[in-house]
């Protein structure tokens, strides 16, 4: 049963891909037929637009305190009220989307890129390459994530860019592990062997045959990791290693709001909800992308 699932892909194994058959059009086709995927895509798109146009969408300045109007509820001037020093919560949320989304995307992107390279090399070549890569994974993994991230940011220049890269540099081993396992699972399957036998080069073998077949769990992982990265950023910021006040990120807004949990819970709800919705969006979108790319599910 399992083998026939891969067979479809095998027939056009070494033909040059026709333009209409590209991954992008596959993706769109798959998304159109999946409601959840469309919702996910819309959420992500909306947030990306908000982040891009942040300066034009903010009703107020995100860093101008108004000490006569602290911790107020929603009003015409401040649609979501004000924070502990009288800044507009909505404006901070909007500006924060820039920072949090870039943190999520860059951190996950970096981690995913490194993890893919290491995992694929490890799984495909095996032998000493595998051993070396996995030793590296074990070494990186043996450090507590946050601790290693703190160390890396301290070595680089503390700041947002450093924090984003550092988060990528500490999370790649989990991707590498998963990718390696998947590659090892498919590399011995008949469609891969036959592609190789029909003269497929390594790169083409990877891009047309192996990677599309291993992406499902990786994409799910990546979409979940987004939320994680957004939260961990706030830890780094708290230690002065990430985004510095008065610049807002959802994570830092959340950790500041923690002090007001009982009396002004809404301060915590807004950034928390933003994170949940974005992660949900990426997750739904990731699922749809997986469906579109995974030959087994077509």
């Amino acid at each position, binding site marked *: 049963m399992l083998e026939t699932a891969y067979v479809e892909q095998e027939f056009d194994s070494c033909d040059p891909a026709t333009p209409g058959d590209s991954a992008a059009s596959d993706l769109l086709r798959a998304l159109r037929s999946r409601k959840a995927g469309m919702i996910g895509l819309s959420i992500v798109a909306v947030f990306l637009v908000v982040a891009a146009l942040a300066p034009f969408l903010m009703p107020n300045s995100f860093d101008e305190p108004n000490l006569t109007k*602290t911790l107020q509820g929603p009003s015409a001037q401040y649609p979501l009220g004000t924070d502990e020093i009288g800044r507009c919560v909505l404006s901070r949320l909007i500006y924060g989307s820039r920072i949090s989304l870039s943190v999520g995307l860059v951190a996950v992107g970096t981690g995913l890129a490194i993890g893919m390279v290491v995992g694929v090399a490890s799984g495909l070549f095996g032998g000493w390459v595998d051993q070396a890569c996995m030793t590296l994974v074990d070494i990186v993994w043996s450090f507590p994530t946050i601790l290693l991230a703190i160390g890396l940011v301290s070595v680089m220049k503390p700041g947002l860019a450093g924090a984003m890269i550092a988060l990528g540099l500490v999370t790649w081993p989990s991707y590498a592990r998963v990718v390696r396992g998947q590659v090892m699972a498919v590399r011995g399957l008949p469609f891969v062997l036959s592609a190789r036998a029909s003269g497929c080069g390594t790169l083409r073998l990877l891009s047309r045959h192996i990677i599309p077949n291993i992406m499902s769990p990786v994409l799910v992982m990546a979409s979940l990791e987004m939320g994680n990265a957004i939260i961990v950023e706030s830890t780094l910021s708290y230690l002065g290693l990430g985004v510095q006040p008065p610049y807002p990120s959802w994570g830092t807004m959340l950790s500041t709001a923690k002090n007001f949990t009982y*009396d002004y819970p809404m301060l915590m709800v807004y950034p928390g909800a933003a994170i949940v919705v974005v992660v949900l969006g990426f997750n739904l979108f990731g699922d749809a992308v997986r469906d579109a790319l995974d030959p087994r599910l077509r």
Partner: protein
Amino acid sequence: MQKRATVFLGCLLVLSLLATGCAPGGKETEKPAPTPATPTPQAPPQQEKVLVIAQSREGDNLDHIKTSWTTGIHFLVFDTVVTTDWDLKYKPGIAESWEVSKDGRVWTFKIRKGMTFHDGTPVNAAAVKWFFDAVLNPSYNSPSAVDYEYMRNSRVVDEYTLEVTLSDSFPNFLSPLASSYAGIISRESYQKYGPEGTKEYGTAKVVGSGPFKFVEWIPNDRMVLAKNPDYNWGPDWVSNRGPVKIDKVVWRTIPDSSTQVAELESGNVHVLLEVPIESVERLSNNPKVQVFKGPHFGLGYLAFATDKKPFTDVRVRKALNLALNREEIVHGVFRDLALPAYGYLPPLMPEYVEDKAAHTYDIEQAKKLLAEAGYPTGFKATLATQNKAEHVRLAEVIKAQLDKVGVKTEIQVFDSAGYASFLKEGKQELFVREYSYADANILQWFLESGQFPYPNHSRWKDQATDRLIKEAETAASLEGRTQKYKELQRYLIDQAVWAPVWVPMKIQAVRADKVKGWRMYPQTIYKVVLNDVDLVP
């Protein structure tokens, strides 16, 4: 099929809950025994009275000879040579009286009779002398040694008389003797368990002569003290001078302040020594909780690296002082639970000098001074702070206020260890600091050139300041010292060495339904006086 499984699981859950509820050792046994209507001498011993106090952090050692860490423990386990009463006046402690020679150099202390350490050894002149010598012993490298830098030698005249000779007149000599670093440790125990013994002192053993005995310390969890039944030498400024009324004190370490508040509300903790200002209103509305507020011996200020441009220019420092709107900060950032600061010391101190004009918001004058100094459009600087929530909030407001005179700042946030090393390395430009201390010599600590580069983090090396401090500390009398410190403060205000911002308030919350006789001690956060405190079930 699936439905039936769910029902079965549900039943199982209910049963297991019932089972735990009925298990022996559950709530049933913890109920306090009903008190008999007429208490008889044969009545069973009452339930142990355990007072639980929350603390946000604990040090790595309780040996106050070797570390400068203070906790509430030090005020409860030890007695000091002199004590300070509720108004911070010096009162007898281990010494029942003292005399000073005319030249202010020889101090004679009469030691109270009948006191014993928790290990049974007597408290006498030799015990006190041993402690002074231990602090000054170079091999212990004690951070408290600076407190006794004027001490030349101490001599046991007879068992209950100690004579201390100073190198100079030092009218403030009683201040270090009353501090938390000056609790007299039992010599025998220190030699047995200290650095020359089993090295347990400070972690597993702490031995003094105070109202409580040290029981145990479980790191990052709790410190436990038990009543000293032999104690009958309470100071004359408490009502109950005999053994304390409670049996145990547990200091629970709870780093997160909102958790502390929740624990107080649920009754697991009786006392919070530091209440986060955002919780004050809610706790005040809780009928079971009493909130104590009072001015605190502390000061929060914006400091400058005075050896770096443009902060070398006194006009720039004055301009920054005028650019801050302290009243707005106290209201908006501290929710009126602080006072605007107009001087370099807490207003409660006799040495305090204030100058409102120099510390009042005047944006035009600030701009004018900046222009005179050659910065008509302002300048850029970094603004560093520790990651304490209030300080970060304050830094954000200071940034916005300085923006208005063209001073563009970039905030840098540090954790406490990172902040200390950042200041030691001298990388600071503008930075937020807060001290909590009840002696004018805090100015010596922070601003004397000998303290450069740390704790003199303002990098203030100034001969006039050094001279005034020296003259104050070696004045012939306390009044003379006070006058000199006043002169020093007027000079510092004139030089605008700091920008004082706020005077914090000391805020404690106590479970009034359980704790009786609580009184807030005005000095330092962790000092508690429990002689008159009682617990009701």
